[in-house]
């Protein structure tokens, strides 16, 4: 029986085509992905009737006819990459185009081949390492989107760092360049063993005026005393969709700084799940989203404090212009065993236009009694008194607004460690305001 409704017809066809395509070839992650749930059921496709998708409608996405074929123009991609200040740094640069590793545009450090590479390369080089990480996010797979990712498993970043090792800075570029609507379901697999350390920047961008969709799953295991810095940058256009899950599990005394910067896209849904399965963990989650036109950005975060003496600190800021809509949903669980937890959460928004909107919802569930938790959410316009102050010094109204808006964003940007990346983000902000 075909359960598909007319609105999900195309999705149904897309899934059927994917199934057929994948039945004809052996997947590079064959053998590693067997236990992943691939039972996509179009009738369970998220709608706004689901609490988790109340403000975020995927209807427009389900009405796009995605192709399985894509052709790209290397020359165009090359000039784009060269326009990015951080592409020129001494680092690993992994470029993925339409879901596949692009060796010509990528630059890897050969001596670190076994620790930093693409997931497909590591699947043949060190499959036993990948087996430890792939699928750790299964408990967090709450919807059909993940099942599509499980089925397709496009290529992505793999970092497998042994004890005590530090990897050179990693930059990942997930690009879509296609004349037909195209979707990438990439999978990143990262494991930092005890006391290992690395910094990752993952940049998403697409070209052309055809609809495109990034649907990545990132699975990260951070062992004891290991340190990870991860920055996600989403710079899509008004025909770009993004629905991703980043699932991170941390052990004792590990440290994480996670940044999510969203400067464009028609619809962005970020799920960030942080499982703090240890003591003395330090986790920072920062977010900055700034949209305009008729677009939506939705950050759903979850921090699960499972053991005592860990700290989490979450700080998301939004600047909404045009008819854009910002959604923030921040869950914090503090389990009974997680005494002496410190968990902080803040979501602040500036609404620049009367047609823009913000929905923010902190959700704390605390089962331990000796904890410090706080949360706060604000949304409003720029402070009129500050605008008047700056104007009384000679700045125009527009200059005063731009200065205040940049200062608001700056509080997040300054937390990003790479100067080239900060420069790039500041440039994006300057162009906007």
């Amino acid at each position, binding site marked *: 029986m075909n359960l598909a409704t007319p609105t999900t017809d195309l999705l149904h066809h897309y899934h059927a085509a994917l199934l057929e395509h994948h039945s004809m070839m052996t997947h590079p992650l064959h053998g590693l992905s067997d236990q992943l749930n691939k039972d996509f059921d179009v009738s369970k496709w998220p709608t706004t009737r689901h609490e988790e998708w109340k403000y975020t409608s995927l209807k427009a996405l389900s009405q796009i006819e995605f192709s399985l074929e894509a052709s790209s123009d290397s020359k165009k991609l090359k000039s784009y990459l060269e326009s990015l200040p951080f592409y020129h740094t001494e680092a690993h640069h992994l470029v993925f185009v339409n879901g596949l590793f692009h060796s010509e545009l990528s630059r890897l450090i050969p001596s670190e081949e076994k620790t930093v590479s693409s997931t497909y390369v590591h699947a043949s080089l060190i499959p036993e390492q990948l087996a430890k990480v792939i699928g750790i996010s299964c408990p967090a797979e709450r919807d059909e989107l993940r099942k599509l990712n499980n089925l397709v498993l496009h290529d992505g970043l793999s970092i497998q760092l042994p004890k005590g090792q530090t990897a050179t800075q990693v930059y990942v570029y997930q690009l879509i360049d296609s004349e037909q609507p195209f979707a990438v379901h990439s999978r990143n697999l990262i494991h930092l063993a005890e006391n290992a350390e690395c910094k990752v920047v993952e940049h998403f961008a697409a070209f052309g005026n055809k609809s495109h969709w990034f649907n990545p799953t990132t699975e990260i295991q951070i062992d004891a005393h290991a340190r990870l810095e991860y920055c996600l940058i989403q710079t899509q256009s008004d025909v770009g969709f993004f629905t991703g899950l980043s699932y991170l599990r941390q052990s004792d005394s590990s440290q994480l700084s996670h940044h999510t910067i969203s400067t464009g896209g028609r619809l962005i849904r970020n799920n960030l799940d942080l499982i703090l399965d240890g003591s003395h963990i330090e986790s920072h989650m920062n977010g900055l989203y700034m949209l305009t036109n008729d677009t939506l950005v939705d950050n759903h975060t979850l921090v699960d404090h499972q053991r005592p003496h860990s700290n989490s600190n979450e700080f998301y800021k939004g600047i909404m212009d045009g008819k854009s809509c910002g959604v923030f949903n921040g869950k914090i669980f503090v389990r009974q065993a997680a005494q002496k937890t410190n968990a902080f959460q803040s979501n602040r928004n500036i609404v620049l236009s009367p047609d823009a909107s913000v929905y923010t919802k902190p959700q704390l569930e605390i089962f331990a009694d000796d904890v410090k938790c706080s949360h706060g959410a604000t949304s409003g316009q720029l402070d009129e008194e*500050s605008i*008047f*102050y*700056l*104007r*009384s010094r*000679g*700045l125009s109204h527009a200059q005063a607004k731009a200065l205040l808006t940049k200062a608001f964003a700056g*509080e997040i940007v300054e937390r990003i460690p790479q100067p080239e990346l900060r420069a790039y983000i500041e440039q994006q902000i300057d162009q906007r305001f």
Partner: protein
Amino acid sequence: MLSIHNLHASIEGKKILNGINLEVKAGEVHAIMGPNGSGKSTLASILAGREEFEVTEGSVDFTGKDLLELSPEDRAREGVFLAFQYPVEIPGVSTINFLKTAINQIREYKGEKPLDAGTFLKTMKEKMKLVEIDQSLLNRSLNEGFSGGEKKRNEIFQMAMLEPRLAILDETDSGLDIDALRIVANGVNKLKNPDNAIILVTHYQRLLDYIVPDHVHVLYKGRIVKSGGKELALELEEKGYDWIKTEQAEIA
């Protein structure tokens, strides 16, 4: 330089100014005194262009231009400066940060070239000495965590940098201890010259021991009810505002 004629203003329908007349010439220092609620700060705000107030009658001429027609930024560019009674705190914006833009906006308005970084820095160092302000303060978020004295010194530092033709100091003395008051007053005195004018809005006579006014005006119920020389301030200090209030009640 500044000529205020029969100025009436209200906020949310409530009348605050009821016909102010005031002439300020280049090189002069005027003190505007008066009890709380007399309209002193309203007058300062209206001159700087605060939009919540509605001017219902009268005119303000500044160097031949209709001041009330100008936006707050154009007033600044024409040379009007307001030292705020309560300077705002702006996280993420330092004094240096916005002052550079401000100076260059003013220069552009006057048809001058933007200030190069070297000259800006040199001027800044000079003016910093004037109000004994530390550079670290100017690099920090504006007024965030500043003491009362630091906030007011920062206002005078900005005045020094912007070199206005007319400076309006709104209760700059409030909340200052005697040392801070002396520093602020010293700075103002050094900025005084034959081409500019200063309006001091103050409740107390204290500031006038340090900045000696040429004219003192007493504002009461939105009107200037008494004008005189610096000795008027001393008389007010001695007799208090009740003297004015009783006198006004008798007239009425």
